[in-house]
């Protein structure tokens, strides 16, 4: 087990290096730069721009810049934002809370609701509920998230006036109820796709399990149905969900980014968009690395957990 984990860790580190090189190259080779915004407002002349470019070290050859960045990174220095001069890690952590709040809420809703729908669908296979759930899940997976967000705003904020049109809190309020009020719409939008996915996965996992021999045996033995379901079926059906949770992370992060854009949620997604817009290289690189690390950890944990709980699977 230890060797397996070490091996996976080594692979992960190598991946991070590749990711950083690709990300850095794309970012810096693309046209435009962090100073364009100042050129537009024209308070700065070409000389001013050249001077600041040099002061930021952006006039050096790209490989040098990359090695410099990479070397600092190894020492734990992720650089500073070009915009507010804050350390990249503190910029990320100050936006992380909002994103986590959104992601956690949506995940909890999605897991509970999705598993419930999936299990019920599997047990009452081909019922009206199951068919509706299947069709509903497919549509949910197909709706453009941002469009769903816009429609949500139109209906619940503009027309009905029940929910705020965006933001995380009313400035100066920030009470629990206020936070909750703001959270409903974006979490709902983010949870929609997640619920559909969990429902689909749960349903098939459950179906697979209840058709296994040991369940049939249990039934044959005349055990009460609820006992069969909870003790035998459900436990085994939930196992693969661990992996789903791990592998689901990138989708969740992507979805959060979209929801944040539509609902002007002050999280990582907005930060990422703004940073790209301003070509704030250190922050963009920081977010890329951070999310890559998260994704890798997610899949690593999922694999390890799965290997632990299900000794039949051992992937090298």
């Amino acid at each position, binding site marked *: 087990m230890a060797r397996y984990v070490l091996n996976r860790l080594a692979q992960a580190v190598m991946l991070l290096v590749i990711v950083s090189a690709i990300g850095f190259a794309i970012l810096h080779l693309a*046209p435009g730069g962090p100073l364009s915004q100042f050129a537009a407002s024209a308070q700065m002349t070409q000389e001013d721009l050249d001077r600041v470019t040099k002061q930021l070290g952006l006039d050096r050859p790209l490989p040098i810049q990359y090695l410099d960045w990479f070397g600092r990174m190894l020492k734990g220095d992720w650089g500073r934002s070009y915009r507010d001069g804050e350390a990249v890690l503190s910029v990320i952590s100050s936006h992380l809370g909002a994103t986590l709040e959104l992601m956690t809420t949506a995940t909890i809703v999605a897991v509970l609701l999705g598993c419930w729908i999936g299990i019920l669908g599997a047990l009452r296979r081909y019922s009206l509920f199951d068919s509706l759930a299947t069709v509903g899940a497919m549509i949910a*997976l197909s709706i453009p998230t941002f469009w769903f967000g816009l429609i949500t705003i139109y209906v619940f904020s503009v027309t009905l006036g029940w929910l705020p049109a965006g933001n995380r809190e009313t400035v100066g309020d920030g009470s629990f109820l206020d936070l909750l009020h703001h959270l409903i719409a974006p979490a709902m939008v983010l949870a929609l796709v997640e619920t559909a996915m969990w429902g689909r996965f749960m349903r098939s996992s459950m179906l697979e399990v209840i058709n296994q021999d040991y369940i049939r045996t249990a039934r044959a033995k005349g055990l009460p149905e609820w006992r069969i379901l909870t003790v035998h079926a459900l436990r085994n059906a939930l196992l693969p969900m661990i992996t789903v949770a791990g*592998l689901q992370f990138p989708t969740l992060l992507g979805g959060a980014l979209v929801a944040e854009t539509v609902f002007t949620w002050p999280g990582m997604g907005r930060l990422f968009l703004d940073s*790209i817009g301003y070509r704030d290289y250190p922050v963009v690189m920081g977010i890329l690395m951070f*999310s890559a690390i998260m994704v890798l950890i997610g899949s690593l944990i999922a*694999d390890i957990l799965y290997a632990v709980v299900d000794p039949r699977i051992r992937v090298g």
Partner: protein
Amino acid sequence: MATVALSTAQSEPGQTAWRRFCRHRLALAGAVIIIILLLGSALGPYLLPFDDTYIDIMKRFAPPLSGAHILGTDELGRDVLARLMMGGRVSLSIGIVAMGIAMAVGVVVGAFAGFYGGVVGAVLMRLVDAVLCFPSIFLLLALAALTEPGLVTTTVLIAATAWMGVARVVEAQVRSLREREFAVAALAFGSSNLRIMFRELVPNAIAPIVVSATLNVANAILLESYISYLGNGIQPPAASWGNMLNNAQIYLTSAPWLAIVPGVAITLAVTSFNFLGDGLRDALDPRMNIS
């Protein structure tokens, strides 16, 4: 990586006829809708009396069903239906072409990695893993914001974020097949590696490729709409469903149909492709797994 068989489809004999019918009926419905959308986009514009780029500034924001314009007019007084059809051409072609590119790249990378294994395989598959490390929307946004927007770049960008899944499927398939008798036999007969790869091995993975392709079209249409929504996609005056939505944003309160119409079109198209893919998966290989 450990992947778990999580096929949504089941194929044990106990399946009732009603259910099977229902499943296939949805796939069928999907196929029919796709054909309607394709035909509508291809032929529709010839049947309409309006040009999709003709601006009539005096007739801005005419609501649907209020006169000659069935779906109303947009912020520049252009016919929304005409734009929807022309936008369909763009969005659907992007979806299909991006899928084509992604499939081609994915199949080639997967086949080479699976066939040669060793260092080549490891390097290629690590590259796949690396690209998969970025949530696809992150990658797409980064790329889109960094390149000049347009039809070609949008298509290529979407393809660039979509080829990895297929590569994995094909790699696994080819790796497991290449040791089987027919590959060994072909090698013994002196066939070239390329020939064996693409004539003997890849065709065996055709089922997952077809399914993946269908789902990829769905995904590509969604991604196009998202890039365009953020203003990095198709350039005006050409219409796409995504940029129609983007332009509609600021008029959401005063002219909601401008946002509803393309949104429904996107949802309809994507749902149809997804159902089609689901149906194909059931039909072609019920045990198959694509995550």
